[in-house]
């Protein structure tokens, strides 16, 4: 199953962590099972630039003589603010059911299990080391 977001939202979210060129952004989205209409990617990037949410820079790939320069896109501070606002809305929409949220008692149990697992792990490691000597 593949999710369909608007090309605009998808591209903004794809640029959240790092800059990228057009094809790279499409691949990044595909890798997360998000489909975008390829023909819309560059026009939308241009629109985002016109709105001041994205900037572009021409860079030649490193170590490849004669390689064609690529246009890398990155978020402007205004773009980053829009991304965070949209992200909050999307996350609220996708929020996990309240039943999965731990109670204070669950937290105590979680801490106790970490201690138990730690003791188990350290004993296993001691046994491993003893076996090697």
């Amino acid at each position, binding site marked *: 199953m593949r999710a369909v977001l608007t090309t605009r939202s998808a591209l903004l979210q794809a640029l959240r962590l790092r800059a990228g060129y057009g094809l790279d952004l499409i691949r990044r989205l595909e890798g997360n099972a998000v489909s975008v209409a390829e023909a819309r990617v560059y026009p939308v990037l241009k629109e985002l630039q016109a709105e001041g949410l994205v900037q572009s820079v021409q860079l030649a790939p490193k170590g490849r003589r004669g390689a064609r320069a690529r246009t890398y896109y990155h978020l402007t501070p205004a773009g980053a603010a829009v991304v965070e606002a949209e992200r909050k809305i999307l996350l609220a929409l996708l929020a996990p059911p309240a039943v999965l949220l731990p109670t204070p008692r669950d937290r105590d149990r979680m801490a*106790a299990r*970490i*201690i138990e697992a730690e003791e188990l792990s350290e004993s296993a490691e001691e046994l491993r080391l003893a076996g090697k000597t």
Partner: protein
Amino acid sequence: MAAGKFTRAAAELLRILGTDRCAIVGGMAVNAHGYVRATRDVDVMANMPLPEARKLLREHGIEARLFKGDPLEGDFTCLKGVIGVGPRRVDAVPFDVIPPLVPFEPDRAIELLVRGEKLRVVDPDTLIRLKLKAGSAKDLYDIAILANLHPEWEERVLALAATTKKDAAQRMLALMRAPRVRGQAKEVARQESALRAFARRIAREG
């Protein structure tokens, strides 16, 4: 009593990378959520580019190697390193720092206090997504056990599995219902209940 080396290593990694930007995932998170078993390392998911995480670690004298995973093999790019929490060789703890492979909201991480150390463990929803994305037999088995331990997780596991691959939800359901998985989950629950009873008795007598 002082915290053990895995807890101290995890707390130190979270401090270095920023407690508001990361959470414990992997075996330690599976332990915390109920399926207790031995682990050999600490895994942290960080909401930042890996080169930034590497720089932060280096500033604290910790070297981490960028491991480029092959997506076709189900691997992913991560940082691998070893953190020392004491002067002895056995005080070294291997760790992985992974990027946000699934939608990750650090605010949802569960804060725990373990023998004086503050830890932030990934929330159930993100853990389920992460394990489904990793998709190895061990990852799916972990989720199946956890869903048996927490029946309230089952519906969510199946809903999220349905968004990954065709038939994934049916396969997950079959795994969750497998007698071996159910038996193992029952044993885990029985052990936890026995340990809690033991702790209560010690507390009463002490």
